Protein backbone atom coordinates (compact mmCIF):
# COMPACT_ATOMS: atom_id res chain seq x y z
CA UNK A 1 0.00 0.00 0.00
CA UNK A 2 1.33 3.43 -0.95
CA UNK A 3 2.24 5.75 1.85
CA UNK A 4 0.31 8.95 2.36
CA UNK A 5 2.00 12.33 2.61
CA UNK A 6 1.32 12.31 6.32
CA UNK A 7 3.18 9.05 6.76
CA UNK A 8 6.16 10.35 4.83
CA UNK A 9 6.16 13.39 7.08
CA UNK A 10 6.00 11.18 10.17
CA UNK A 11 8.93 9.14 8.85
CA UNK A 12 10.87 12.33 8.27
CA UNK A 13 10.18 13.49 11.81
CA UNK A 14 11.60 10.25 13.14
CA UNK A 15 14.95 10.60 11.39
CA UNK A 16 17.96 11.36 13.53
CA UNK A 17 18.74 14.56 11.67
CA UNK A 18 15.24 15.94 12.14
CA UNK A 19 15.28 15.08 15.80
CA UNK A 20 18.65 16.73 16.22
CA UNK A 21 17.19 19.95 14.82
CA UNK A 22 13.75 19.97 16.43
CA UNK A 23 13.56 19.04 20.06
CA UNK A 24 9.89 18.09 20.03
CA UNK A 25 10.19 14.47 18.95
CA UNK A 26 7.80 12.33 16.98
CA UNK A 27 4.21 11.22 17.29
CA UNK A 28 0.97 13.11 17.09
CA UNK A 29 -0.23 12.76 20.65
CA UNK A 30 -1.53 15.89 22.32
CA UNK A 31 1.68 16.10 24.29
CA UNK A 32 3.87 15.87 21.19
CA UNK A 33 1.84 18.48 19.37
CA UNK A 34 2.07 20.77 22.36
CA UNK A 35 5.83 20.24 22.47
CA UNK A 36 6.11 21.05 18.76
CA UNK A 37 5.01 24.56 19.70
CA UNK A 38 6.59 24.88 23.09
CA UNK A 39 10.02 23.52 22.16
CA UNK A 40 10.49 25.79 19.15
CA UNK A 41 12.09 29.16 19.76
CA UNK A 42 9.81 30.94 17.27
CA UNK A 43 6.59 29.02 17.83
CA UNK A 44 6.84 29.09 21.61
CA UNK A 45 5.70 32.70 21.44
CA UNK A 46 2.26 31.23 20.71
CA UNK A 47 -0.08 29.21 22.88
CA UNK A 48 -0.03 25.45 22.44
CA UNK A 49 -3.83 25.51 22.29
CA UNK A 50 -6.37 27.99 21.02
CA UNK A 51 -10.06 28.12 21.86
CA UNK A 52 -11.73 26.51 18.83
CA UNK A 53 -14.34 29.26 18.75
CA UNK A 54 -11.61 31.87 18.23
CA UNK A 55 -10.59 30.20 14.98
CA UNK A 56 -13.79 31.23 13.22
CA UNK A 57 -13.30 34.00 10.71
CA UNK A 58 -15.80 36.31 12.42
CA UNK A 59 -13.92 36.22 15.74
CA UNK A 60 -10.81 38.07 14.55
CA UNK A 61 -11.11 38.33 10.76
CA UNK A 62 -7.52 37.00 10.93
CA UNK A 63 -6.34 40.62 10.79
CA UNK A 64 -3.32 40.11 13.04
CA UNK A 65 -2.26 37.04 11.08
CA UNK A 66 -2.67 38.87 7.79
CA UNK A 67 -0.64 41.82 9.06
CA UNK A 68 2.16 39.39 9.90
CA UNK A 69 1.72 37.99 6.39
CA UNK A 70 2.29 41.39 4.79
CA UNK A 71 5.37 41.84 6.98
CA UNK A 72 6.78 38.52 5.68
CA UNK A 73 6.10 39.56 2.09
CA UNK A 74 7.74 42.93 2.70
CA UNK A 75 10.89 41.35 4.11
CA UNK A 76 11.00 38.80 1.30
CA UNK A 77 10.65 41.45 -1.42
CA UNK A 78 12.61 44.16 0.39
CA UNK A 79 15.86 42.21 0.64
CA UNK A 80 16.16 41.53 -3.13
CA UNK A 81 15.22 45.17 -3.78
CA UNK A 82 18.14 46.25 -1.61
CA UNK A 83 20.50 44.37 -3.91
CA UNK A 84 19.63 46.68 -6.80
CA UNK A 85 19.48 49.95 -4.93
CA UNK A 86 22.00 52.65 -3.95
CA UNK A 87 20.79 55.24 -1.43
CA UNK A 88 22.45 58.16 -3.17
CA UNK A 89 21.28 61.11 -5.25
CA UNK A 90 20.42 60.77 -8.12
CA UNK A 91 21.49 57.10 -8.43
CA UNK A 92 18.51 56.02 -6.29
CA UNK A 93 16.11 57.22 -8.96
CA UNK A 94 18.02 55.50 -11.77
CA UNK A 95 18.10 52.28 -9.77
CA UNK A 96 14.36 52.47 -9.35
CA UNK A 97 13.99 53.05 -13.08
CA UNK A 98 16.22 50.04 -13.72
CA UNK A 99 14.05 47.96 -11.42
CA UNK A 100 11.14 49.05 -13.57
CA UNK A 101 12.70 48.33 -16.96
CA UNK A 102 16.00 46.38 -16.71
CA UNK A 103 16.10 43.99 -13.75
CA UNK A 104 14.31 40.67 -14.34
CA UNK A 105 11.02 40.74 -12.43
CA UNK A 106 12.16 44.02 -10.86
CA UNK A 107 8.87 45.65 -11.73
CA UNK A 108 6.96 42.84 -10.05
CA UNK A 109 9.19 42.96 -6.96
CA UNK A 110 8.68 46.68 -6.54
CA UNK A 111 4.95 46.45 -7.20
CA UNK A 112 4.55 43.69 -4.63
CA UNK A 113 6.61 45.61 -2.07
CA UNK A 114 4.66 48.80 -2.62
CA UNK A 115 1.16 47.31 -2.56
CA UNK A 116 1.98 45.07 0.40
CA UNK A 117 3.20 48.14 2.30
CA UNK A 118 -0.13 49.89 1.68
CA UNK A 119 -1.94 46.70 2.66
CA UNK A 120 0.06 46.49 5.89
CA UNK A 121 -0.81 50.04 6.94
CA UNK A 122 -4.46 49.36 6.19
CA UNK A 123 -4.45 45.99 8.01
CA UNK A 124 -2.76 47.44 11.10
CA UNK A 125 -5.51 50.06 11.38
CA UNK A 126 -8.20 47.45 10.74
CA UNK A 127 -6.66 45.15 13.36
CA UNK A 128 -6.63 47.96 15.91
CA UNK A 129 -10.29 48.83 15.39
CA UNK A 130 -11.33 45.17 15.43
CA UNK A 131 -9.49 44.63 18.72
CA UNK A 132 -11.12 47.76 20.13
CA UNK A 133 -14.65 46.77 19.17
CA UNK A 134 -14.11 43.28 20.60
CA UNK A 135 -13.03 44.93 23.85
CA UNK A 136 -9.86 42.84 23.75
CA UNK A 137 -7.76 45.55 25.43
CA UNK A 138 -9.28 44.75 28.83
CA UNK A 139 -7.27 43.46 31.81
CA UNK A 140 -4.78 41.79 31.66
CA UNK A 141 -4.18 42.83 28.07
CA UNK A 142 -3.71 46.59 28.63
CA UNK A 143 -0.03 46.63 27.89
CA UNK A 144 -0.35 44.49 24.80
CA UNK A 145 -2.70 47.16 23.46
CA UNK A 146 0.00 49.77 24.17
CA UNK A 147 2.55 47.65 22.31
CA UNK A 148 0.02 47.49 19.48
CA UNK A 149 -0.09 51.30 19.36
CA UNK A 150 3.73 51.36 19.24
CA UNK A 151 3.61 48.87 16.36
CA UNK A 152 1.10 51.08 14.56
CA UNK A 153 3.54 54.00 14.80
CA UNK A 154 6.45 51.82 13.66
CA UNK A 155 4.39 50.65 10.68
CA UNK A 156 3.57 54.23 9.71
CA UNK A 157 7.24 55.21 10.00
CA UNK A 158 8.34 52.18 7.99
CA UNK A 159 5.95 53.10 5.23
CA UNK A 160 6.82 56.77 5.40
CA UNK A 161 10.61 56.23 5.26
CA UNK A 162 10.16 53.82 2.35
CA UNK A 163 8.15 56.43 0.50
CA UNK A 164 11.23 58.60 -0.08
CA UNK A 165 13.50 55.88 -1.46
CA UNK A 166 12.48 55.98 -5.18
CA UNK A 167 13.62 59.65 -5.16
CA UNK A 168 11.02 60.75 -7.69
CA UNK A 169 8.84 63.85 -7.54
CA UNK A 170 6.10 61.97 -5.68
CA UNK A 171 8.55 60.77 -3.02
CA UNK A 172 10.40 64.04 -2.65
CA UNK A 173 7.38 66.24 -2.13
CA UNK A 174 5.44 63.80 0.02
CA UNK A 175 8.39 63.70 2.43
CA UNK A 176 8.81 67.47 2.21
CA UNK A 177 5.16 68.01 3.14
CA UNK A 178 5.33 65.39 5.91
CA UNK A 179 8.60 66.49 7.44
CA UNK A 180 7.55 70.14 7.50
CA UNK A 181 4.95 69.16 10.08
CA UNK A 182 7.82 68.25 12.43
CA UNK A 183 8.96 71.89 12.26
CA UNK A 184 5.69 72.93 13.86
CA UNK A 185 6.60 71.33 17.19
CA UNK A 186 7.03 74.23 19.64
CA UNK A 187 10.60 75.22 20.58
CA UNK A 188 12.43 72.14 19.26
CA UNK A 189 10.55 71.74 15.95
CA UNK A 190 13.39 72.91 13.73
CA UNK A 191 15.89 70.74 15.62
CA UNK A 192 13.71 67.64 15.11
CA UNK A 193 13.30 68.55 11.45
CA UNK A 194 17.07 68.89 11.05
CA UNK A 195 17.74 65.64 12.91
CA UNK A 196 15.24 63.74 10.77
CA UNK A 197 16.57 65.02 7.44
CA UNK A 198 20.23 65.60 8.22
CA UNK A 199 19.79 69.10 6.82
CA UNK A 200 17.24 71.85 6.53
CA UNK A 201 15.57 70.34 3.47
CA UNK A 202 15.10 66.90 1.90
CA UNK A 203 18.50 66.07 0.41
CA UNK A 204 21.03 63.26 -0.01
CA UNK A 205 21.53 63.05 3.77
CA UNK A 206 17.81 62.60 4.27
CA UNK A 207 17.78 59.79 1.71
CA UNK A 208 20.57 57.96 3.52
CA UNK A 209 18.90 58.44 6.91
CA UNK A 210 15.57 57.20 5.64
CA UNK A 211 17.30 54.23 4.01
CA UNK A 212 19.00 53.18 7.24
CA UNK A 213 15.80 53.67 9.21
CA UNK A 214 13.77 51.79 6.61
CA UNK A 215 16.04 48.80 6.09
CA UNK A 216 17.66 48.43 9.48
CA UNK A 217 16.42 50.27 12.54
CA UNK A 218 12.66 50.19 12.06
CA UNK A 219 12.43 46.53 10.89
CA UNK A 220 14.48 45.45 13.92
CA UNK A 221 12.25 47.53 16.19
CA UNK A 222 9.20 45.97 14.55
CA UNK A 223 10.49 42.42 15.04
CA UNK A 224 11.33 43.19 18.67
CA UNK A 225 7.86 44.51 19.47
CA UNK A 226 6.03 41.90 17.38
CA UNK A 227 7.77 39.18 19.42
CA UNK A 228 6.57 40.77 22.66
CA UNK A 229 3.11 41.29 21.15
CA UNK A 230 2.71 37.58 20.34
CA UNK A 231 4.25 36.40 23.59
CA UNK A 232 1.89 38.61 25.58
CA UNK A 233 -1.14 37.09 23.82
CA UNK A 234 -0.10 33.72 25.24
CA UNK A 235 0.80 35.08 28.66
CA UNK A 236 -2.42 37.06 28.94
CA UNK A 237 -4.60 34.01 28.37
CA UNK A 238 -4.85 33.60 24.63
CA UNK A 239 -7.08 35.42 22.21
CA UNK A 240 -9.70 37.44 24.05
CA UNK A 241 -13.04 35.67 23.83
CA UNK A 242 -15.29 37.75 26.07
CA UNK A 243 -17.49 39.47 23.53
CA UNK A 244 -18.34 36.28 21.67
CA UNK A 245 -19.43 34.53 24.82
CA UNK A 246 -23.16 33.98 25.28
CA UNK A 247 -24.85 36.77 27.23
CA UNK A 248 -25.45 34.55 30.26
CA UNK A 249 -21.78 33.71 30.61
CA UNK A 250 -20.89 37.35 30.08
CA UNK A 251 -23.00 38.70 32.86
CA UNK A 252 -21.70 36.01 35.20
CA UNK A 253 -18.09 36.67 34.34
CA UNK A 254 -18.58 40.40 34.74
CA UNK A 255 -19.06 39.75 38.42
CA UNK A 256 -15.71 38.01 38.49
CA UNK A 257 -13.82 40.31 36.18
CA UNK A 258 -10.49 39.69 37.83
CA UNK A 259 -10.50 36.06 36.85
CA UNK A 260 -7.83 35.45 34.29
CA UNK A 261 -8.03 32.45 32.06
CA UNK A 262 -4.81 30.56 32.23
CA UNK A 263 -4.05 29.22 28.85
CA UNK A 264 -0.34 29.45 28.41
Amino acid at each position, binding site marked *: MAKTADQYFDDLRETRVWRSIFRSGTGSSTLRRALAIQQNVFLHLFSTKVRTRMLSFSATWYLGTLTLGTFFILVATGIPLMLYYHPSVPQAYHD*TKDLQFVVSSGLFLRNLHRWSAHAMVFLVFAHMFKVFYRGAYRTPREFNWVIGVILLLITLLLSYTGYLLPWDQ*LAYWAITVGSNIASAVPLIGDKIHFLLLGGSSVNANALLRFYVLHCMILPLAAIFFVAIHFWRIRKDGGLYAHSSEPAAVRSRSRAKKKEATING
Partner: protein
Amino acid sequence: MAEAKDFVAAIDSNAKKSPRRIVFITRRTSAQVKAETEDQTQSFPEVLFRAAVAIQLLAIALVWISLLFNAPLEGLADPSHTPNPAKAPWYFLGLQEMLHYFPPVVAGVLAPGLVVMALIVIPYFKVNIEAEGLFTKDRLRRLRVFYAVTAPLVIFLGWFHVIVALVPTLIVAGLMLLASQSSAQSSSAFRRYLAARPLSYWVMTWFLFELMVVTATGTFFRGPGWSWVWPWKPY
Protein backbone atom coordinates in the same frame (compact mmCIF):
# COMPACT_ATOMS: atom_id res chain seq x y z
CA MET B 1 -16.95 15.16 66.62
CA ALA B 2 -14.59 16.95 64.31
CA GLU B 3 -15.64 20.35 63.11
CA ALA B 4 -17.44 20.41 59.80
CA LYS B 5 -15.14 21.31 56.96
CA ASP B 6 -15.40 24.80 55.63
CA PHE B 7 -15.15 23.71 52.02
CA VAL B 8 -15.79 20.90 49.62
CA ALA B 9 -13.21 19.70 47.13
CA ALA B 10 -13.91 18.71 43.57
CA ILE B 11 -11.72 17.48 40.77
CA ASP B 12 -12.22 18.36 37.14
CA SER B 13 -12.46 14.94 35.54
CA ASN B 14 -11.67 16.08 32.02
CA ALA B 15 -7.93 15.95 32.55
CA LYS B 16 -7.23 15.21 28.91
CA LYS B 17 -8.52 18.56 27.71
CA SER B 18 -7.45 20.82 30.50
CA PRO B 19 -4.94 20.58 33.30
CA ARG B 20 -6.39 19.11 36.46
CA ARG B 21 -7.80 21.76 38.72
CA ILE B 22 -8.85 21.36 42.27
CA VAL B 23 -11.52 23.79 43.34
CA PHE B 24 -12.19 24.73 46.92
CA ILE B 25 -15.61 26.14 47.55
CA THR B 26 -16.10 27.67 50.96
CA ARG B 27 -19.54 27.73 52.51
CA ARG B 28 -19.87 31.43 53.11
CA THR B 29 -18.77 32.77 49.78
CA SER B 30 -20.30 31.22 46.73
CA ALA B 31 -17.25 31.14 44.53
CA GLN B 32 -17.97 31.45 40.86
CA VAL B 33 -16.08 28.82 38.98
CA LYS B 34 -15.75 29.89 35.40
CA ALA B 35 -16.86 27.16 33.07
CA GLU B 36 -13.67 26.37 31.21
CA THR B 37 -14.88 23.29 29.43
CA GLU B 38 -14.84 24.93 26.05
CA ASP B 39 -13.21 23.22 23.13
CA GLN B 40 -9.61 23.98 22.38
CA THR B 41 -7.64 23.23 19.26
CA GLN B 42 -3.98 22.32 19.23
CA SER B 43 -1.88 25.04 17.63
CA PHE B 44 0.26 22.41 15.96
CA PRO B 45 -0.68 21.77 13.27
CA GLU B 46 -4.28 23.00 12.97
CA VAL B 47 -3.94 26.67 13.91
CA LEU B 48 -0.62 27.08 12.12
CA PHE B 49 -2.19 25.55 9.03
CA ARG B 50 -5.07 28.01 9.14
CA ALA B 51 -2.68 30.93 9.56
CA ALA B 52 -0.63 29.67 6.61
CA VAL B 53 -3.75 29.42 4.43
CA ALA B 54 -4.83 32.94 5.42
CA ILE B 55 -1.39 34.34 4.57
CA GLN B 56 -1.33 32.38 1.30
CA LEU B 57 -4.69 33.82 0.21
CA LEU B 58 -3.47 37.31 1.03
CA ALA B 59 -0.23 36.69 -0.89
CA ILE B 60 -2.18 35.47 -3.93
CA ALA B 61 -4.34 38.59 -3.85
CA LEU B 62 -1.32 40.88 -3.55
CA VAL B 63 0.52 39.06 -6.35
CA TRP B 64 -2.49 39.56 -8.63
CA ILE B 65 -2.65 43.25 -7.74
CA SER B 66 1.10 43.56 -8.42
CA LEU B 67 0.75 41.88 -11.80
CA LEU B 68 -2.12 44.14 -12.82
CA PHE B 69 -1.14 47.52 -11.38
CA ASN B 70 2.25 49.20 -11.47
CA ALA B 71 3.56 51.20 -8.54
CA PRO B 72 3.69 54.90 -9.42
CA LEU B 73 7.02 56.38 -10.46
CA GLU B 74 7.25 60.00 -11.54
CA GLY B 75 10.16 62.09 -12.82
CA LEU B 76 13.41 62.61 -10.94
CA ALA B 77 13.03 64.61 -7.71
CA ASP B 78 13.33 68.31 -8.46
CA PRO B 79 13.46 70.67 -5.47
CA SER B 80 12.88 73.68 -7.71
CA HIS B 81 9.61 72.42 -9.11
CA THR B 82 6.75 71.92 -6.65
CA PRO B 83 3.87 69.82 -7.96
CA ASN B 84 0.40 71.15 -7.24
CA PRO B 85 -1.01 69.63 -5.14
CA ALA B 86 1.92 68.13 -3.23
CA LYS B 87 0.43 65.29 -1.24
CA ALA B 88 1.76 63.19 1.64
CA PRO B 89 1.20 59.39 1.64
CA TRP B 90 -2.51 58.51 1.88
CA TYR B 91 -2.47 57.64 5.60
CA PHE B 92 -1.26 61.18 6.39
CA LEU B 93 -3.75 62.93 4.09
CA GLY B 94 -6.26 63.23 6.92
CA LEU B 95 -3.59 65.18 8.75
CA GLN B 96 -2.85 67.26 5.68
CA GLU B 97 -6.56 67.98 5.28
CA MET B 98 -6.63 69.29 8.86
CA LEU B 99 -3.55 71.44 8.13
CA HIS B 100 -5.71 73.15 5.53
CA TYR B 101 -7.93 74.52 8.32
CA PHE B 102 -5.75 74.88 11.38
CA PRO B 103 -2.21 76.12 12.09
CA PRO B 104 0.47 73.39 11.93
CA VAL B 105 1.04 73.35 15.67
CA VAL B 106 -2.63 72.44 16.21
CA ALA B 107 -3.34 70.13 13.27
CA GLY B 108 0.13 68.67 12.86
CA VAL B 109 1.40 68.32 16.41
CA LEU B 110 -1.32 68.76 19.02
CA ALA B 111 -4.10 66.76 17.33
CA PRO B 112 -2.07 63.66 16.33
CA GLY B 113 -0.21 63.78 19.65
CA LEU B 114 -3.49 63.75 21.54
CA VAL B 115 -4.83 60.93 19.35
CA VAL B 116 -1.78 58.75 20.10
CA MET B 117 -2.01 59.57 23.82
CA ALA B 118 -5.73 58.79 23.82
CA LEU B 119 -5.13 55.45 22.09
CA ILE B 120 -2.43 54.47 24.59
CA VAL B 121 -4.50 55.22 27.69
CA ILE B 122 -7.72 53.52 26.48
CA PRO B 123 -7.32 50.32 28.52
CA TYR B 124 -6.38 52.18 31.69
CA PHE B 125 -9.67 54.04 32.10
CA LYS B 126 -12.68 52.42 33.61
CA VAL B 127 -15.03 54.23 31.26
CA ASN B 128 -13.59 52.10 28.45
CA ILE B 129 -14.04 48.87 30.38
CA GLU B 130 -17.73 49.36 31.14
CA ALA B 131 -20.00 47.65 28.68
CA GLU B 132 -23.29 49.27 29.62
CA GLY B 133 -25.33 51.39 27.21
CA LEU B 134 -24.44 55.08 27.50
CA PHE B 135 -27.97 56.23 28.30
CA THR B 136 -29.13 53.21 30.31
CA LYS B 137 -28.54 54.91 33.65
CA ASP B 138 -28.89 58.57 34.59
CA ARG B 139 -30.34 59.39 31.20
CA LEU B 140 -31.17 63.07 31.64
CA ARG B 141 -27.89 64.02 33.27
CA ARG B 142 -25.93 62.19 30.60
CA LEU B 143 -27.94 63.87 27.87
CA ARG B 144 -27.02 67.24 29.36
CA VAL B 145 -23.33 66.28 29.31
CA PHE B 146 -23.74 65.05 25.75
CA TYR B 147 -25.18 68.42 24.66
CA ALA B 148 -22.54 70.32 26.60
CA VAL B 149 -19.76 68.48 24.78
CA THR B 150 -21.28 68.17 21.33
CA ALA B 151 -22.64 71.71 20.88
CA PRO B 152 -19.27 73.51 21.34
CA LEU B 153 -17.61 70.96 19.07
CA VAL B 154 -20.20 71.50 16.33
CA ILE B 155 -19.95 75.30 16.70
CA PHE B 156 -16.14 75.12 16.63
CA LEU B 157 -16.08 73.01 13.45
CA GLY B 158 -18.76 75.19 11.84
CA TRP B 159 -16.92 78.38 12.80
CA PHE B 160 -13.79 77.23 10.94
CA HIS B 161 -15.85 75.79 8.05
CA VAL B 162 -14.46 72.29 8.60
CA ILE B 163 -17.38 70.72 6.74
CA VAL B 164 -15.62 67.37 6.24
CA ALA B 165 -15.26 66.96 10.01
CA LEU B 166 -18.62 68.51 10.81
CA VAL B 167 -20.72 66.08 8.76
CA PRO B 168 -19.47 62.88 10.47
CA THR B 169 -19.81 64.59 13.86
CA LEU B 170 -23.45 65.47 13.16
CA ILE B 171 -24.23 61.96 11.91
CA VAL B 172 -22.72 60.28 14.99
CA ALA B 173 -24.41 62.84 17.27
CA GLY B 174 -27.72 62.06 15.55
CA LEU B 175 -27.24 58.34 16.15
CA MET B 176 -26.39 59.05 19.79
CA LEU B 177 -29.61 61.03 20.19
CA LEU B 178 -31.49 58.13 18.64
CA ALA B 179 -29.75 55.83 21.12
CA SER B 180 -30.87 58.05 24.00
CA GLN B 181 -34.47 57.67 22.81
CA SER B 182 -34.13 53.89 22.52
CA SER B 183 -33.95 51.14 25.09
CA ALA B 184 -33.69 47.38 25.37
CA GLN B 185 -37.46 47.32 24.87
CA SER B 186 -37.43 49.19 21.55
CA SER B 187 -39.20 47.42 18.74
CA SER B 188 -36.49 47.76 16.10
CA ALA B 189 -33.34 45.67 16.41
CA PHE B 190 -31.20 48.59 15.24
CA ARG B 191 -32.43 50.81 18.07
CA ARG B 192 -31.90 48.05 20.63
CA TYR B 193 -28.37 47.77 19.27
CA LEU B 194 -27.76 51.52 19.59
CA ALA B 195 -29.20 51.63 23.10
CA ALA B 196 -26.69 49.04 24.28
CA ARG B 197 -23.58 50.90 23.03
CA PRO B 198 -21.26 52.25 25.76
CA LEU B 199 -19.51 55.62 25.68
CA SER B 200 -16.19 54.16 24.47
CA TYR B 201 -17.98 52.74 21.43
CA TRP B 202 -19.37 56.17 20.50
CA VAL B 203 -16.07 57.98 20.89
CA MET B 204 -14.14 55.41 18.85
CA THR B 205 -16.81 55.20 16.16
CA TRP B 206 -16.79 58.98 15.84
CA PHE B 207 -12.98 58.90 15.54
CA LEU B 208 -13.04 56.07 12.96
CA PHE B 209 -15.71 57.84 10.92
CA GLU B 210 -13.79 61.16 11.00
CA LEU B 211 -10.57 59.38 10.06
CA MET B 212 -12.16 57.71 7.05
CA VAL B 213 -13.98 60.80 5.76
CA VAL B 214 -11.02 63.13 6.21
CA THR B 215 -8.54 60.67 4.67
CA ALA B 216 -10.84 59.98 1.71
CA THR B 217 -11.32 63.72 1.20
CA GLY B 218 -7.59 64.38 1.16
CA THR B 219 -6.97 61.44 -1.17
CA PHE B 220 -9.72 61.81 -3.75
CA PHE B 221 -11.30 65.23 -3.47
CA ARG B 222 -8.37 67.63 -3.27
CA GLY B 223 -6.68 69.22 -6.27
CA PRO B 224 -4.48 72.23 -7.06
CA GLY B 225 -4.17 74.66 -4.17
CA TRP B 226 -6.02 72.09 -2.03
CA SER B 227 -9.25 73.07 -3.79
CA TRP B 228 -12.23 70.74 -3.88
CA VAL B 229 -12.23 68.51 -6.99
CA TRP B 230 -14.28 65.53 -8.13
CA PRO B 231 -12.17 62.41 -8.63
CA TRP B 232 -13.87 61.55 -11.94
CA LYS B 233 -13.08 64.98 -13.44
CA PRO B 234 -9.45 65.49 -14.45
CA TYR B 235 -7.93 68.76 -13.33
